[in-house]
């Protein structure tokens, strides 16, 4: 079992890092030939950085768009962020100081994340417009995340696992010095399998929204076309031909 999970996690990590890395490279090399920020837009790079920060941290546009979705999205992503920070303790030794500080909140974060996910799912099921646009994969993605959260929370509250052992296993993986995975607990296997699945599908799915935001021309382009010429290489070629 330990060997199986070791292999699975190596594959999953490779998929995640390689896949997302390739996507980012691919987005970065594709030119944006015209200046198309959604205005009013900041006119400087600093202004753009602020705009993106507001989008990432507060989901500014979504706030304008739909308060309900925004609320659940904040619960889910906020919870997720805390949970992930809390999880860093399985991968760092010694555990970074600020990760320790997050620990007490992390417990509630898991629940908050689940509530957010349920809210989002409710929207998907009961709002006719959102139901219309949902594909099976949209539902499965939510199911997957909810199951991850439930299995994680169950380990916390119902059936404890040997966290020290889990940590040793992952530290071992990272150092290529394999340790056994504690085998007392089926929940852990469930949690880990689901997480590996998530990592593998990340670069092939709509989860690309996370890197995508940083490459969205309507958000990351400064509004300065009169002051500065912006031209894509393929468009510049047209000029030379003439």
């Amino acid at each position, binding site marked *: 079992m330990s060997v199986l999970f070791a292999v699975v996690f190596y594959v999953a990590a490779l998929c995640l890092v390689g896949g997302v890395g390739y996507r980012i490279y691919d*987005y970065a090399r594709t030119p*944006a030939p015209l200046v198309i920020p959604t205005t009013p837009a900041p006119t400087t790079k600093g202004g753009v950085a602020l705009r993106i920060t507001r989008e990432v941290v507060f989901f500014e546009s979504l706030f*304008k768009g739909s308060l309900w979705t925004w609320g659940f999205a904040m619960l889910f992503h906020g919870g997720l962020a805390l949970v992930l920070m809390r999880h860093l303790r399985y991968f760092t030794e010694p555990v970074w100081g600020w990760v320790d500080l997050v620990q007490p909140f992390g417990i509630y974060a898991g629940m908050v994340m689940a509530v957010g996910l349920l809210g989002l799912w409710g929207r998907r099921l009961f709002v006719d417009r959102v139901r219309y646009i949902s*594909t099976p994969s949209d539902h499965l993605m939510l199911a997957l995340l909810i199951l991850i959260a439930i299995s994680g929370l169950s380990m916390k509250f119902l059936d404890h696992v040997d966290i020290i052992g889990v940590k040793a296993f992952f530290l071992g993986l990272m150092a290529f010095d394999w340790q056994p995975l504690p085998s007392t607990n089926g929940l852990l296997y469930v949690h880990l399998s689901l997480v590996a699945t998530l990592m593998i599908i990340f670069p092939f799915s*709509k989860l690309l929204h996370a890197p995508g935001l940083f490459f*969205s021309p309507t958000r990351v382009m400064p509004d300065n076309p009169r002051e500065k*010429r*912006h031209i894509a290489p393929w468009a510049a070629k047209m000029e030379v031909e003439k």
Partner: protein
Amino acid sequence: MAAEITAPPYRVIPIIPSIKPGAMEGLKPFVASDKIQEALGFPGELVEDWEERAIAKMGELLKKYRSLKVYLDACVHCGACSDKCHYFIGTQDPKNMPVARQDLLRSVYRRYFTIPGKLFPKLVGARDLTREVLDEWYSYYHQCSECRRCSVFCPYGIDTAEVTMAAREILDSVGYGQKYANEIIGKVHKIGNNLGLPGPALTDTLEGLEEDVKEDTGIDIRFPLDVKGAEVLLITPSADFFAEPHIDSLVGYAKVFHAAGISWTLSSKASEGGNFGLFIGSYDQLRQIALRIREAALELGVKRIVVGECGHAWRVAYSFWNTLTGIGDGADPNDRFAIQLQKQLDQRYKQPSHICEVTWDLIQKQAITLDPEANDHYVVTFHDSCNVARASRMGDMPGGQFEIPRNIIRAAANKFVDMNEATIMEKTFCCGGGGGLLTDDLMDLRVKGALPRMEALKEVVEKDGVNFMAAICAICKTQFTKVLPYYGFNMRMIGGVHQLVSNAIRLGDK
């Protein structure tokens, strides 16, 4: 067709409508004839291997446009945009929800360009490109006015207009173009403007206009054409030359230049501000049409280029001219025309400038004087045109595109009120006729798409007695003139900002 067009009922309180699948299914603007298509270098009719060629074109566009690529990947189907489109609100057809409109293309993208779509099409909503899908593209990508309202609310800024443009480009490349837009582009190349008004007719029109204005005001206000050495070249939509109420704004521009003592000229070669290359998503057409203006500016030796009241023309001028023609900064050193133009133009002014920037600047410098009492018979409101509001700027500050026209209106009229704040500025609703849809064969859609704007207008008409809606876009003006009566309003309620200026400006003593 024509007889059954009616406006949808006003919503009691503007609630989000429920969906009515298939409500606008099969709506199709006229397809371009082989003549129209071939004049632009597109295949004359649907080619035999359209499927392959469409996919190849999609692949090409994915390499050329980051917007398309990121937007096809990033959407999480959150639905924030789903109730934001005026065509959805007016028609309730779920395929007019921005996200569903994107999905028409996205489903094909997934099928041919992504691994999950190749392996599990059903799971991720991927579809083969069939004839039905192609027809659906033609139908629903001609029910989008590329107004970008959806992109304001999307957490990733996904701009459905970019997707629509890509889809139209693919359709053109397989010989399935739209008659209205492509015919107009042909006219610009052949005659110099969208309306196909030849040079001599333009001369006549302008002379007639000088006489009319003289009769009205007793003052000789000139409408110069092709005057070499003028300071300003005015580029304005050709509708300004004879359509109502557009022409009243043209008179307004002329009076502003007259009162401020600025020499100006129109050009018969570039007698068109509009650039429908934008609507069909063709960079090449966009560029070719923009280059006409550069040529005209060089021939006439002007120092400034000013753009009249036209929404998408201002987007192209403000956001794209520099890229397309090197009018302001950083041209290719081998591009001697761009270099020459940059030397020739007076870079102390913004190049290009919007006529509203010019007028507001003159008002502030007290180079012209307005008597707002002249418009006391009006209670004015302002319709932000989408391309100005969400795709460009005026002045130095973000948001100047909202402030400057309003400042001018306040200077020209005493009574001004804004419409509901959810329907103005960056959240403004399209008039319903933008993006290459201003054609009679789409009248039903145009009337329905105007619903949210009409609701907001009705509110201020009832509350504040508004009787004049000012706009700075030729398409908005034409569209509202047609559509207002369907909603029980007088078609003369719509007019230009410079129409108000024209009424209020003091002539003669300056």
